[in-house]
């Protein structure tokens, strides 16, 4: 699964996710990537999120929206909200994967709880950072 979140000069956030799903899947199984609120979400007032992981868990936990909701209703930062959802709530339920999240001030979070996470970001200074974790 690949995804991207971005913040433009006008302060607008956007999120996108694209995937081939999982090998050997059957019966027209669909994961979280195309489910708004589960694998993809964006709201200028909170954050933009793209997720990658075991879709069934991400759908049931409404992961992307949950991060935004924690920011909106509990006043958490994007880093704390993403951490709470991916490293606590998802782990408690056995859900594996991670997210990228970005708020309207350019603060970003990239928590994950499993292997094979490829990440990259670039901020206004133009410095490109690419990381392949674990």
């Amino acid at each position, binding site marked *: 699964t690949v995804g991207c979140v971005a913040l433009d000069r006008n302060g607008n956030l956007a999120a996108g996710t694209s995937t081939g799903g999982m090998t050997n899947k059957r019966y027209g199984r669909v994961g979280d990537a195309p489910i708004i609120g589960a694998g993809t979400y964006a709201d200028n007032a909170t954050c933009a999120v793209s997720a990658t992981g075991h879709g069934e868990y991400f759908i049931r936990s409404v992961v992307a929206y949950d991060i935004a909701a924690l920011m909106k209703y509990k006043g958490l930062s994007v880093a704390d909200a993403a951490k709470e959802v991916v490293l606590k709530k998802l782990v408690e339920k056995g859900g594996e994967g991670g997210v990228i999240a970005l708020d309207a001030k350019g603060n*970003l979070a990239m928590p994950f709880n499993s292997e094979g996470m490829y990440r990259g970001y670039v901020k206004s200074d133009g410095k490109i950072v690419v990381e392949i974790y674990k």
Partner: protein
Amino acid sequence: SDITLVIHGGAGTITRKNMTPEKEKAYRAALEQALKAGYAVLQKGGASLDAVEEAIHVMEDSPLFNAGKGAVFTHEGKNELDAAMMDGKTGKAGAVAGVTTIRNPISAARAVMEKSQHVMLIGKGAEVFAKEKGLEIVDPGYFYTESRWNALQKAIEQEKVELDHSEEKPKKPDMKKAGSRADDLIFTEGKKFG
């Protein structure tokens, strides 16, 4: 605002443990290319939606990632693609699921968001819609990659081996015992491999 762009890419079974230096170099180059493509849009004052679409195009067009060309196979040997996009300014959203002929599903998701009254279109209908909106339609064979095909054969083979050697019904996947996973799963009746 401080322009910012963040990406994630997933390759299924390939993690750092089994990645050769050449593979790692290739992945890093592709991720960097995606970042540059998206950042170029933002730097020129472009919209975040355009930047997201550009960055994802790069990864969809690369055979390295599980999206677009390079997508994994279903049990039936097809590449079924899903994508979604959301606009933080307006709250509009679009998605496609189970499409097999749209070269860049992320653009189809955006078209659903901007050119339809709906949020999600699936299968054949989504493909007809994408074609009507002028998106590039390809033969399903475009998405084929040998490594993903081999991964499917391996998954199917392991499924058979399990059935041949055990009269017990296949166990439900135990996510804690099944070991680590990447962001894309290879799924058999009793096992999953990330």
